[in-house]
């Protein structure tokens, strides 16, 4: 039995282009045919491409290439293939693919891009395999393929003849992969699976506690590692009591790693290797280290905040956007509103602490990691540890939460560096304290805003001095304000300036980077302007959006960042959501009220209405939360999509309620959940309602765009309920009492 590949120029090129896998030699993985004059493929399996396998038994396996962290892609993307393949979902087996971008194309999970990047390709993949199975049946029966059709894992002929996919697999495996022109896609009206509520494929394993996650991995002879880093970011090891630590029970080794001088890569530290996790944890408590903390120890959050306040009225370091004459417009405004908004650094706090298992032997590295971007890990290991990429294997484990944290590869490179010194597979487990104190944080920020209204209550001027945090001369991830960020481009006299504090603090993408805070600031301030104008917050926003349907990128401002913005889609989703929520129709008693906000990010248009009650003692309860979302034509998995929105509402609310890190002398003060409380079930909204509006646009992702309007909707509702305007996160620092 042997198989070989038979490249066919035209078909291959088309197929590869459409699967996003341009590059000649890659076809080998895609099109496996029996050797010339040879026998059937090994096992008789039909493997038309890297994603689908049809066994002679009829069993269909679909490989999920994307990292799964709870966003649901291991279910939703294979659903697309199964839909077009015309195979019952209950008969499909889903397998997690290893990292192999030559075989699968991009495998990065971030930016809500898994769906838009793969949607069309996966339709074509499934439909191509179905077309080949239909062709196989037609050849078997010696009838035209046009007389055959696929139904539920079988091909049927008009005469009543019927063959299962398994029986056709061997014949199908001898066929050319058809060009995309020869493949007919199922129409949305014929969809049986897409748009339905489908439970995640890992549910049976989740609810019965079977191994799934990175931390669950067990390998024969495996050792357990902890890694102690300097509490101050990037600090170096001067000395440590390694000789003593090595004598502790269960400890196999302890050693210092120098690090590569980059705080988001391999930090200096001490590895302790033991025969169990607890032995490693216990030994670590007796570790004594002298650190060289470096200059970062001079940097504290409070000092930066004071400096920002002192500099607020001065010009910023950079002008991000300037339209019209903002000072003149403010001077001649009928009404002027000024406010300071402040939000802190926060952590991702994945519930599964960072971890990776690595095995280094014979110059090769094998890694099991809950990572969102395996390519980043491979790249970092190659760069920092000089292990060539082709000698690195990465197995993707389910991740216990992502939220952008696992785009970073610091924990993966730590595990790899440790594994180079350990003659066995080794699992690195971060403690919760490691996780909270060595995250790559969402940067905090301050905005000093001034707005002007004319006599008719229209916004004529908007000025913002934005203070952000940088690393290496650039704002941290989520710390860059696009000149196109709404309401830039909408207001005739507009000035956005930036001042950046360069720090040694690690920052990274936190779910809907930038958007998750800018939306709160701007939609809160827009609400202030609406109330100053004496207008209804919804009407005011619709007027601000205006009557044009498209707002082009740049819009005449200095910056060309950002992008085209469909004002029409935003108007529609705003009206749709307001209607679903019954905006303006409810009478609220004092202490209760509704707030509204909208945001465009990650190609999704979202509007939200919060209804809250605040007790006289200042206790907040979210009674009802309504979301309207436009992510294009097709919701792939309705249950997964609703779950993402529900989770976004809770996540956005949780960040607003309690989350803040105090960074003092270059280190995070908080260590665990008693000091960094996350939202609990008691604080979750009583009711979350999610509505999708299908529009004639490409299908886009849903992991992030529902987050940004959550906080402003809640804060605007708090104002409606109490007259208290929230200008600081988290709410635990704000007095909400009213009389």
């Amino acid at each position: 039995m042997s198989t070989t590949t038979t490249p066919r120029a035209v078909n291959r090129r088309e197929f590869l282009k459409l699967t996003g896998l341009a590059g000649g030699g890659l076809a080998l993985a895609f099109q496996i045919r029996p050797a010339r004059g040879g026998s059937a493929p090994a096992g008789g399996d039909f493997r038309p491409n890297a994603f689908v396998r049809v066994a002679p038994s009829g069993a269909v396996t679909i490989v999920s290439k994307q990292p799964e962290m709870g966003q649901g892609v291991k279910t939703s993307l294979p659903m697309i293939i199964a839909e077009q393949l015309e195979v019952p979902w209950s008969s499909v087996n889903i397998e997690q693919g290893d990292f192999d971008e030559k075989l699968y194309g991009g495998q990065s999970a971030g930016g809500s891009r898994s769906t838009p990047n793969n949607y069309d390709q996966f339709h074509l993949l499934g439909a191509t395999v179905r077309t080949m199975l239909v062709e196989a049946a037609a050849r078997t029966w010696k009838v035209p393929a046009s007389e055959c059709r696929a139904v539920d894992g079988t091909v049927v002929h008009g005469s009543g003849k019927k063959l299962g996919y398994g029986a056709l697999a061997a014949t199908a495996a001898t066929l050319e992969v058809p060009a995309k022109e020869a493949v007919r896609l199922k129409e949305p009206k014929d969809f049986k699976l897409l748009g339905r509520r489908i439970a995640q494929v890992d549910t049976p394993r989740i609810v019965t506690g079977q191994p799934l996650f990175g931390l669950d991995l067990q390998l024969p002879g495996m050792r357990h590692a902890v890694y102690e880093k300097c509490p101050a970011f990037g600090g170096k090891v001067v000395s440590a009591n390694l000789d003593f630590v090595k004598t502790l029970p269960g400890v196999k080794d302890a050693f210092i790693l120098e690090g590569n001088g980059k705080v988001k890569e391999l930090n200096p530290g001490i590895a302790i290797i033991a025969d169990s996790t607890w032995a490693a944890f216990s030994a670590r408590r007796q570790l004594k280290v002298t650190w060289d903390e470096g200059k970062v120890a001079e940097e504290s959050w409070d000092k930066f905040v004071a400096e920002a306040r002192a500099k607020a009225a001065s010009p910023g370091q950079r002008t991000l956007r300037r339209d019209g004459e903002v000072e003149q417009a403010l001077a001649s405004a009928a009404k002027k509103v000024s406010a300071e908004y402040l939000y802190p650094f926060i952590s991702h706090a994945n519930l599964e602490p960072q971890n990776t298992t690595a095995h280094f032997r014979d110059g090769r590295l094998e890694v099991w990691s809950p990572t969102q971007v395996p390519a980043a890990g491979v790249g970092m290991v190659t760069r920092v540890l000089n292990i060539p990429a082709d000698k690195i294997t990465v197995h993707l484990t389910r991740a216990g939460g992502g939220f952008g944290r696992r785009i970073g590869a610091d924990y993966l490179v730590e595990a790899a560096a440790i594994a180079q010194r350990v003659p066995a597979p080794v699992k690195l487990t971060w403690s919760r304290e490691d996780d909270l104190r060595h995250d790559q944080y969402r940067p905090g920020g301050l905005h000093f805003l001034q707005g002007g209204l004319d006599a008719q209550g229209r916004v004529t001027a908007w000025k913002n001095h934005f203070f952000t945090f940088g690393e290496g001369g650039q704002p941290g991830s989520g710390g860059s304000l696009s000149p196109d960020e709404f309401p830039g481009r909408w207001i005739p006299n507009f000035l956005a300036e930036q001042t950046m504090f360069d720090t040694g603090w690690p920052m990274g993408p936190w779910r809907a980077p930038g958007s998750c805070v800018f939306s709160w600031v701007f939609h809160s301030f827009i609400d202030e302007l609406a109330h100053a104008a004496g207008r209804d917050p919804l009407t005011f926003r619709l007027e601000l959006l205006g009557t044009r349907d498209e707002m082009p990128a740049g819009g005449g401002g200095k910056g060309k960042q950002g992008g085209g913005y469909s004002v029409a889609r935003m108007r529609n989703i705003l009206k749709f959501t307001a209607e679903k929520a019954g905006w303006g129709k409810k009478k609220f008693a004092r202490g209760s009220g509704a707030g509204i906000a909208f945001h465009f990010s990650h190609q999704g248009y979202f509007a939200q209405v919060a209804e809250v009650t605040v007790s006289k003692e200042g206790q907040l309860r979210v009674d009802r939360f309504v979301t309207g979302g436009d992510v294009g034509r097709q919701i792939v998995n309705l249950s997964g999509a609703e779950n993402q929105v529900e989770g976004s509402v809770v996540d956005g609310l949780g960040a607003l309620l309690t989350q803040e890190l105090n960074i003092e002398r270059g280190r995070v003060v908080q260590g665990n959940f008693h000091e960094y409380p996350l939202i609990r079930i008691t604080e979750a909204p009583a009711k979350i309602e999610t509505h999708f509006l299908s529009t004639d646009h490409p299908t886009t992702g849903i992991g992030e765009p529902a987050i940004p309007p959550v906080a402003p909707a809640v804060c605007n509702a708090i104002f409606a309920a109490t007259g208290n305007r929230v200008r600081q996160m988290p709410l635990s620092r704000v007095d909400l009492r009213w009389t």
Partner: protein
Amino acid sequence: MKYTLSVNGASRSVDVAPDTPLLWVLRDHLELTGTKFGCGIGQCGACTVHLNGVPARACMTPVSTVGRMKVTTIEGLAPAPGKLHPLQQAWTELDVAQCGYCQPGQLMTAAALLRDNPKPTDEDIDGAMAGNLCRCGTYTRIRQGIKRAAELTAGGKGVAQ
């Protein structure tokens, strides 16, 4: 030290330090990794197991204190192999999980709630489940899941009678 534990109805022996938390005995020594490590200080509930039917934080329970208490983990929640507990059934029907990491702990806490209170209200649920964090924010589905499991349990009893 040698300890013999009763875990999910089976007698299991381990040789570990007396201060080893039950969590790490289960995960590292008995290969029962359904019980999760989240915080190590009893704040997140991901390590919730039952000791003689009472929810306990395995990360705060030294193995030396377990004695003869019956340990039940998520792997032992189902009534029989191939069967699901009504909560597991409800979690599947309602697709409760996102990342799923906290869910074993949620299920163990919820199972004790339902045993003591077969028809919990939202307030009862919030009160019982307040110690279990879900970072993905599946709280509204957890409430629904517990109510659905209550229905399934009541229905099941009806059929059996």
